[in-house]
């Protein structure tokens, strides 16, 4: 699953999709995930990175990550061709 390549994300968690003009605010964990996705990290790498940085159990990340990807999809932030 890949994030749209032209999404802009600021350090403070501001997200902008130039394709349709949508903007979003995101929290720290979401910003981390999106930033790592933009660096083409795999989902396993991303989850490991989160686990190293945050006080959280692996199972929680697994579940939240999957849901978050769905949410990105719902908001038209994933690229459809990378499937």
């Amino acid at each position: 699953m890949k994030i749209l390549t032209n999404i802009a994300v600021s350090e403070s968690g501001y997200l902008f999709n130039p394709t349709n003009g949508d903007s979003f605010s995101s929290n720290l964990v979401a910003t981390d995930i999106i930033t790592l996705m933009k660096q083409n990290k795999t989902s396993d790498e991303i989850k490991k990175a989160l686990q190293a940085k945050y006080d959280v159990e692996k199972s929680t990340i697994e579940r939240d990550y999957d849901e978050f990807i769905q949410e990105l999809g719902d908001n038209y932030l994933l690229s459809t061709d990378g499937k």
Partner: protein
Amino acid sequence: MSTETKEKLRYERPMIRKMNAGLMNKFGTRTEYQPTSHIDTVPVKRIIEQYGSPCFVISERTIRKTYQSALRAFKTRYPKVQFAWSYKTNYLDAVCKVFHQEGAWAEVVSGFEYEKAIRNGVPGNKILFNGPDKTIAELKQAIENESTIHIDHFDELYDLIEIVETSKKKAKVAIRVNMDVGVYPLWDRFGFNYESYQAWNAITKIMNCEKMELVGLHTHIGTFMLTAGAYGIAASKLCDLAMNIKAKWNKSIQYIDMGGGFASTNTLRGSYLPGNDISPSFDDYAEVITSTILNYGFKQEDLPLLMLESGRALIDDAGYLVGSVLANKRLADGRRATIMDFGVNILFTAFWYEHKISPAQEFTHHSEDMVVYGPLCMNIDKVRESVNLPLLNRGDHVVVHKVGAYNMTQWMQFIAMRPNVVMIDMKGEVHLIRKNETIETLTDLESIPAHLNAFKL
């Protein structure tokens, strides 16, 4: 390893939120939530560690403060005021006793509540006995104890007329009066109607019975009354009856009882404005009621005692429910759902109120709209239909505010047991005032016919 864990950041579920510039969302302005980490200086975390989750917490300080401000509102406007604690609102003994220490009498609506008041040490003549369901034995006991019986219907009045024929003591009675105060639906199922002269008819029967003394006139016009003006109408109708009694029998009525019904500052479900902004204050109610009575034209010596049976407005603020997040979910339509370890089984008032819920620990400024569910396997088990809350993790604690009224009496033992109830005293010490139920609480009441004991599966 442990130092490394400590340095890790607090985790929060990843979330993004679309920004709709310029559009007000239907959840109102952005949340200005503060975490409620302490209740009266006691950490919520400690309460949960010690007494489990969920747990009801009652602040003795808030009860006393609320009671005193209600009393002040009336006493500064009227010379003779007496509150009677409405037992049904919260009849945990510790709660009742705080009110009795503050000077409140007891207002009860059943034999069971009557017994509780007696056991709590309330003198019989300081108990007002309301309600449509009083047995002959209970009526006799009330007469013996010199409690005031608030007669609800003619059948009860006839019962009393019969009972006093053989009793040594006179019965002290009042009648409950229902009336049109401009707020609909009318609560006309209780008491005698004013407009149709039913009340006058009952009064006449009582005045004609030598062994009964009519000491008061009572009304209870509804609950969560958002218009203070309705009390003005009600007070003037009771004053009218009192004046007519004086004119016809030269008898002064000892008290006028305005019942309960003052709104608390909770927000009613579906209300556009928060309760804090629209609920009348004690001063608003007091102003209308006392000015009506004072201006009605009683002679100074005939001015009746003003009795009040306020329930929810006196106890809602003092009650909290602390609980924990069981799970987070994404619903099929994309909405967020949070499942708590408490539901409508113990938070009955979730059917009426949009209860304020605060996280009990620090959180970031990110928030999301969500449905808050309880743990019951029932669709009705919704604590909040839609609320904007900071992101909550599994195991996080929350505090539900203003739950002191009716929950600890109307809670159901359904699927789960009723939890501990604690009271924080004036010094910040925590006392268990009602133990959580266990399986034995239920099974001790059951018995199994012998032929059902054995089975093979």
